[in-house]
């Protein structure tokens, strides 16, 4: 096991953990906002996939990563509009609609990709990297953590911004109330449907952004079904994080690291069957659920539609 503590292995592991963890972080933060407000957003995977597709197409045609991100976010948001209209406004079952969104997004993006690119898979150029001054010179960490696309640092900033928002603004209070006692929020003069709609649209944007990062930066390419369970992990992260954005980041890092393990081990020249390593993230999901799942403390009105004046 001599290869494990070498610089190439560690750099590859850290770098890979960030790249693989980013989509999970963004989607997890988004899902957390919906869940806080009482909406169980099972369609997260579908929103990521649509974001990956629209983000890739926009970046491919414009050559701009920023337009790619924007298009990815908007794609996810557009998908979230379905949840808004059907679940929040009409009170339909959130789980059923969520599953439909994911299945539908898988089919639709595959089809659109095929129509557009036939069987070819064009690549984007490598994403621009912003190596942070001074920090980039730290051994191992410099190349592992501080040489990434600008969006990575913005996402970390977002974690703290969301923590602050939940704690210190009226919006944070409204979201919490919408998830726990929507009738009380309504009685206080805040529209529950508006509050939840805002949360779900933000979720869609963040999930789509995560998808765009996955396609444009992580892979540089769009492949049908490319999210491969990332949305599901995002939901798990949000549920376990007990409303704390920082915990989503810790979780995303953990899952990111286990995803990055495959490449890192190859870099280190260690020969463990890839099947075993690829199982790792899912083993981690199960272990985490066993340890923390009992105490996830979800909002009491999670998944329950609210209609004013209804008994």
């Amino acid at each position, binding site marked *: 096991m001599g290869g494990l503590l070498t610089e190439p292995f560690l750099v590859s592991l850290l770098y890979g953990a960030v790249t693989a963890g980013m989509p999970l972080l963004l989607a997890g933060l988004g899902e957390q906002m919906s869940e806080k407000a009482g909406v169980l957003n099972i369609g997260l995977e579908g929103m990521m996939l649509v974001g990956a597709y629209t983000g890739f197409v926009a970046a491919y045609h414009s050559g701009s990563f920023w337009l790619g991100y924007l298009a990815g976010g908007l794609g996810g948001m557009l998908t979230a509009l379905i949840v808004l209209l059907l679940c929040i406004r009409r009170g339909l079952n959130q789980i059923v609609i969520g599953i439909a969104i994911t299945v539908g997004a898988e089919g639709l993006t595959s089809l659109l990709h095929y129509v557009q690119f036939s069987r070819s898979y064009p690549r984007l150029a490598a994403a621009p990297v912003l190596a942070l001054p001074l920090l980039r010179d730290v051994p191992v960490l410099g190349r592992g953590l501080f040489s990434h696309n600008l969006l990575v640092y913005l996402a970390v900033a977002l974690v703290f911004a969301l923590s602050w928002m939940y704690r210190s603004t009226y919006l944070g209070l409204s979201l*919490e109330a919408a998830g726990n006692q929507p009738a009380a929020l309504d009685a*206080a*003069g805040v529209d529950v449907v508006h509050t939840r709609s805002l949360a779900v649209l933000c979720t869609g944007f963040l999930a789509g952004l995560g998808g765009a990062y996955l396609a444009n930066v992580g892979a540089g390419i769009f492949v049908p079904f490319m999210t491969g369970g990332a949305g599901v992990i995002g939901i798990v992260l949000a549920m376990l994080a007990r409303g704390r954005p920082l915990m989503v980041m810790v979780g995303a890092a953990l899952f990111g690291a286990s995803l990055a393990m495959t490449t890192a081990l190859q870099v280190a020249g260690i020969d463990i069957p890839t099947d075993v390593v690829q199982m790792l993230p899912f083993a981690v999901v199960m272990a985490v659920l066993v340890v923390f799942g009992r105490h996830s403390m979800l909002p009491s009105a999670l998944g329950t539609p609210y209609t004013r004046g209804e008994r």
Partner: protein
Amino acid sequence: MSIVAALSGITKRYPGVVALDAVSLEFHAGEVHVLLGENGAGKSTLVSVLAGMQQPDEGTVIIGGNPLRIASPRHSIQLGIGTVFQRPSLVLSLTVIENLMLGGSWLRRLARAAALRRFRELATLLGTHLDPDAPLAGLSLGEQQQVEIMRALWRDAKLLLLDEPTSMLTPQGVADLGRMMRNLRDRGVALILITHKLGEAYEFGDRISVLRLGKVAGGIDPEALVAMEESGRTATIIRLMFGLEAGEAATTAGGHAAELAILLGRKIHGPAVVDRSQPPVLRVREASTRAEFAETPLRKVSFELWSSEVLGIAGVDGNGQKHLAEMIAGQRAVHGGALELGGIDITQGGVPERRGRGVRYVTDDRLGEGTVGALPVATNLVLKEVGAPPWWHHGITDWAAIHAHARVLIERNDIRTPSALTPAGKLSGGNVQKVLLARELDAEARVAILNKPTHGLDLHNQRLALDRIGTAAARGVALLVISTDLDELIEISDRIGVMFGGRLAGIVDNDAGAIDRVRRLMTGAGAT
């Protein structure tokens, strides 16, 4: 005095009922306007219309002389209307001050300092002593009620609606509320108070209106109220409430027994006669249970319970009451000591065996442990006999029998449900409790344990539940009733036992001095 708000010809229909039928009323500044009416008369619907929670089908609301439509709760607040709803509407996971701050514009930082100033202002006005940073879930119902009132007054309400605010309060809480209401009235606020108790209506009210089946049946205006004798007022109100002819004896208003008892603050019936020359039905000897995290176990509890007896169990919550109930029901192992039912040792038996011998248990966790919310009422009514005849034969469900059985019980116990197939979770708390009581206090019941049978119910349903307990006792069932409401225990019990630190600190006969002895025992001091 000036009219703050008025309703003109308000009609509100729900599927199958006209909740408000062309209601016109006026609410004056500096006046407490009491609304009386039977359960379902439309009082809460009237409140919902003024609070912007419901839109009337016809009619207008007039505020400060302008006819308008109150489009949303926010609009109602902006119009200077503050509401304390019948159902608690606060966020339990937030603190007191956070609950009060709810409703500010989204992107602004929480203005905590300003909120605290307003909080102290209102605390002085109302004479309350709450900790603004206390989590709401930790407050008593009375304290939560104070928070509700503060929230209703937060933006200087000109009209304050109070929908049955006293039903959850202790006598002290009611007195405090009365003081608050007088304070507000003297500052020119118009108040609407809904209550089921005539005593409160007379004590706090300046004007009384009575609703009946969605219509204004009549009322007593301030001059008449002052001029009338109490007996005259009461006769008038009862006549209006139940739609009786003048001269018809109000006290015999058939079918309204529960409602009348509430109105007049009277008991439905006294304890049944207990024959202690017979051997007791249930004998508990030095029974203990095993300690569990955050729960008080039983320590050598002994008592005897006779047929037709109601043994009340008082005590501050968490002194072993839950273990006592679960141990007798067979849900919790007896760890030392013995239980005897009708002379037969049942210490080892589990739930099915004890149920077979007539032991019944009504849990305080109505929707979690007592019923399966997603299952229909009919299934919930046979929930404890799943798989057993006559409802199941060799594993095959006899739906016809279950549904027929359910229809009988629904009818007999006045369970208000759209149908026997409605999921139990859709029913109101009072009706879920009726399902539980119907299931547990059946013909084969010999010993029934009821844990907080009236907790969280409205007055009407509290009455009905107590009534059912009295009827069961008269039939010969031996009842153990656990409650934190001492008044209720005094009303229904033959004897009252007090739990303290997992022990039965003592049992006192329910006679004149009982309440003082029970209070003393509750603090852990010995009875004398």
